[in-house]
C-alpha cells in the first residue's frame, strides 16, 4: 500500500476479525489507530472483507468523530470542553490554540505536526480547564502553559 507506513500490515489488521458487518467499526478503529486515518484502499479492503457496501462504510466512517479520512497530525492537542472545563474557560483555550496553531478545532497543521481537537469531558474535572497533549495532561491550563508545551512539540 502506497499510503501506509511500511511497518503496518493492513492484511493482518483485516484478519483480526470475522468478515461480518458487526466488525466494521472494530476494523475502522484498528485502521485509524495504525494509520492515523482511514486510507481509501483500506476502506475498500474492509468492505470486501465484511461485505458491507462501500457507501455504507463511508457513511459510518464519516459519522463517528474518531475516524478521519485525512491523515491526522503527529501530535494530538485535545482541549476538554466538558461542563466544568467550560465554566473555567475551556473555550478561551480553544480560541487561543486556534490563533497559535492557525487551524480550526478538528484540523491539522499544514506540516502535519499537530491536530487540534476538542473533547467532551475527560473525567478529571478537578483539574479543569484541562488540555491533553498526546498523553500528557495539562491541569489548570493557561495560555502561558500552552505556549511552553507547543514550543516543546516543535523542538522534538
Amino acid at each position, binding site marked *: 500500500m502506497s499510503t501506509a507506513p511500511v511497518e503496518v500490515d493492513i492484511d493482518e489488521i483485516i484478519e483480526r476479525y470475522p468478515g461480518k458487518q458487526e466488525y466494521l467499526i472494530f476494523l475502522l478503529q484498528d485502521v485509524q489507530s495504525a494509520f492515523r486515518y482511514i486510507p481509501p484502499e483500506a476502506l475498500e479492503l474492509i468492505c470486501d472483507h465484511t461485505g458491507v457496501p462501500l457507501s455504507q462504510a463511508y457513511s459510518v466512517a464519516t459519522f463517528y468523530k474518531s475516524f478521519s479520512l485525512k491523515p491526522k497530525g503527529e501530535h494530538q492537542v485535545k482541549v476538554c470542553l466538558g*461542563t466544568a472545563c467550560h*465554566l473555567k474557560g475551556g473555550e*478561551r483555550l480553544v*480560541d487561543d490554540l486556534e490563533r497559535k496553531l492557525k487551524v480550526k478545532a478538528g484540523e491539522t497543521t499544514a506540516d502535519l505536526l499537530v491536530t487540534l481537537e476538542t473533547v*467532551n469531558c475527560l473525567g*478529571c474535572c*478537578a483539574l479543569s480547564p484541562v488540555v491533553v497533549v498526546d498523553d500528557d495532561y495539562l491541569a489548570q491550563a493557561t*495560555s502561558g502553559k500552552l505556549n511552553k508545551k507547543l514550543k516543546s512539540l516543535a523542538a522534538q
Partner: protein
Amino acid sequence: MAETNVAQSFTERRLGSAADLKLYQEELLAQKDPQQAEVIVCYGTGCLAAGAEQVEAALKEALDQAGLDTKVRPLIKTTGCRGFCSRGPLVVIQPEGLFYQKVKASDAEEIVQTTLVEGQPVERLLYQDPQSGEPIPREQDIPFYKKQHRLVLGRIGSVDPTDIRESIAAGAYQALAKVLTGMSPEDVVSEVEKSGLRGRGGAGFPTGRKWRGALKAIEKKGRPVYVVCNGDEGDPGAFMDCMIMEGDPHAVLEGMIIAAYALGSEQGYIYVRHEYPVAIKHLDLAMEQARSLGLLGDNILGSDFCFDLRINRGAGAFVCGESTALFTSIEGLAGEPRPKYVRSVEEGLWGRPTVLNNVESWANVPLIINNGADWFAGIGVPHSTGTKVFSLVGKVNNVGLVEVPMGTSLVEIIEEIGGGVPGGEPFKAVQTGGPSGGCIPYSLKDVPVDYDSLSKVGSMMGSGGMIVMDERDCVVDVARYFLRFLEEESCGKCIPCRLGLTRLREMLDDFSKGKGTEKDVEEIESLGEAIKDGSLCALGGSAPNPVLTTLQYFRDEYLAHINERRCPAGICKELISYQIDQEACTGCRTCARLCPQEAISGEKKKPHTIDQDKCIQCGICLESCNFGAVQVISPALVSQKSQEAAS
C-alpha cells in the same frame, strides 16, 4: 506487588463450584496479613492527571532504598478512583488508614521514613478541617466522606482492579454463587423488582420491570436474548460510570452475568465510550481473568450456564448513549436512533429481546442479591431506592465522586460534602442531568435528590453529573454551551433536532450579544416545545431543557442581556470589557506579553491600560494576572471605534 507463585496458582485454577469460590476466597484472605502495611496510590483519572504515576514510582524507589523488606514488607498497590479528586494525588497507608492528599513525588521519602519506618503521620500531607484547621488523619472522618454512603463505590479504592483475586477476597462473585446455587431465574427477577432499583442512566425506568418485560418477550419470541451494558457515558461533567468500570469492573460483570442467568442469555455486550481507554483495559482484563477462573464463559462455576461478553468501543458519538442508537452501533452501522414504539426488551439488538442497563445499574445488582431486596429498598426514599453516585464538579471546593442515599438534599451534597462554593458565597444554581437536564436555583436547595423530585422542578436525575455554578456563571452562556454540545452531537436524522438546535442556539447567540426582544423569549419557548415534541429520540427530546429551565428560573438574567445589554455574570463577550485597575496593577507586563492582540500598553512597573479598540475579550489578561488587577465590566465600555461609527 503480586508474588509470582500466587499469580501462577491463579492462572491454573478453575473454580468448579460455588463452594470452590468460597474456598478460594478464604484462601486469599488467609494469605493476607491484616497487620501488613499497604501503600495505596489512587489511580483515578484525576489523580493520574495530577501525577499519581510519578508519586507511585517515587514511593517504590523510596521503599526499596529504605530496605524495609527486611521488616514487614509493605505492599504498594494502585486502585480506582477514591473520589476526592480535587485533593489528588491521593495516597492511603493501611492498616492505619492514614489519608495523604496532594502528594508529590518529592514527598515519597518522608512518607516512607516518617510513617512506615517511624510509624508517625506526615502532618502536612493530612487533610485539614476547613473550619478548625485541625488535621484529620483518617479518610472516614473527613467531611467529604462522612456523609457519604459508599456501596457501589464500596470496593473502589481498596482493591487493585487489575487483579481479580483482590476483588474475590473482597467478596466479588458471591452474589453469582448465591444465584447459581439457590435462586431460580424467577427468584432473581422478583428480587430485583422488589428492590425498587431504577435505571441509573437517566430515565429511571424500573430495572426489575425491564427484566420482567424481557422474560415476557422471550415467551413470545424465544431466544436469543441479549444483555447489554451502556458504558457510553457522554454527559460532559459526568464520570461516575468511567470510575466504576475502571475501579471495580467485576461488579459490572457480575451484575450482567446474574441477569444473563435470569434471562437465559448466552451473549452480552459492553459498549464503552472510546475516550475511556483505561476502563476498556480494566474490563478486558477483568473478563479475561474471570474467564480463566470459570466465572465467565462456558459452564460458569461448574454449572450448565454459559455466558460470554464482548466489549464494543464507541467511536465518538454522544448519541450512541441512546438505546436504539447504541444497538445500531453494535450492529456495525452509523449510530442513528430508531423510533421506539416497540420497546427494546421486545425488539432490541438485532431485533431480539434485549436488556440494556447502565454501568451503575449493573453494579447495584450484586449488592441487591447479596443483601436482599428489603435491605436495598430500605436505603433512600420510597420511589427512589438505594444510593446514587454523582460527579460533583464546577464551582465547588470538593470536586469528586460522591455516593449518597437517594433523597439526600442538594444543599447537603453541595455544602456538606462538597464544602460549598470557593469564597463561601451560596451557589447560584446546580445543573443536574447534563445536557438533557435542567438548572436548579439556590432557592430550591432543599429539593431531595431523587427521580421524581428532580423532574418536578424541571430537571432530571440523568446519569449523575452535578455541576455547581456561582454568580460568575452566566445562565445564557450555560444554555448556549449545552445547545452547542448537542448541536455537534445530533445525529442529524430528524429535522427538529438537526435544524432546531442550531436555530435555538442562534437565538441564544443573539441574546448573548444583547440582541433580541421579549417576544423572542416567548418564541424560544415555543420552538423548544416543538423540538421536544417533534424529535425522534431523547437527545432532541430533552435538548431544550437547559434553556427552558434557565428561562423558568432566571428570566431576569435573560432580560438583562436584551433590555440592558448587560451580562450580570460578566461572561458574554460582546457585553463586557476588560479594564485594568490602576491601583492594583504592578506593571509586571505579564498580561501585555500574553495578549494576542498587543492591546495592552504601559511601561514596566507602571499601571497598564487596555486599548478597547484592539481588545477581543479573549480573557487571557484576566487569567494571567497575579494581582487581581484585571476587571470585567458589564455593560461594556463603548470603544472609540464604535463611538465614531455611531456619530
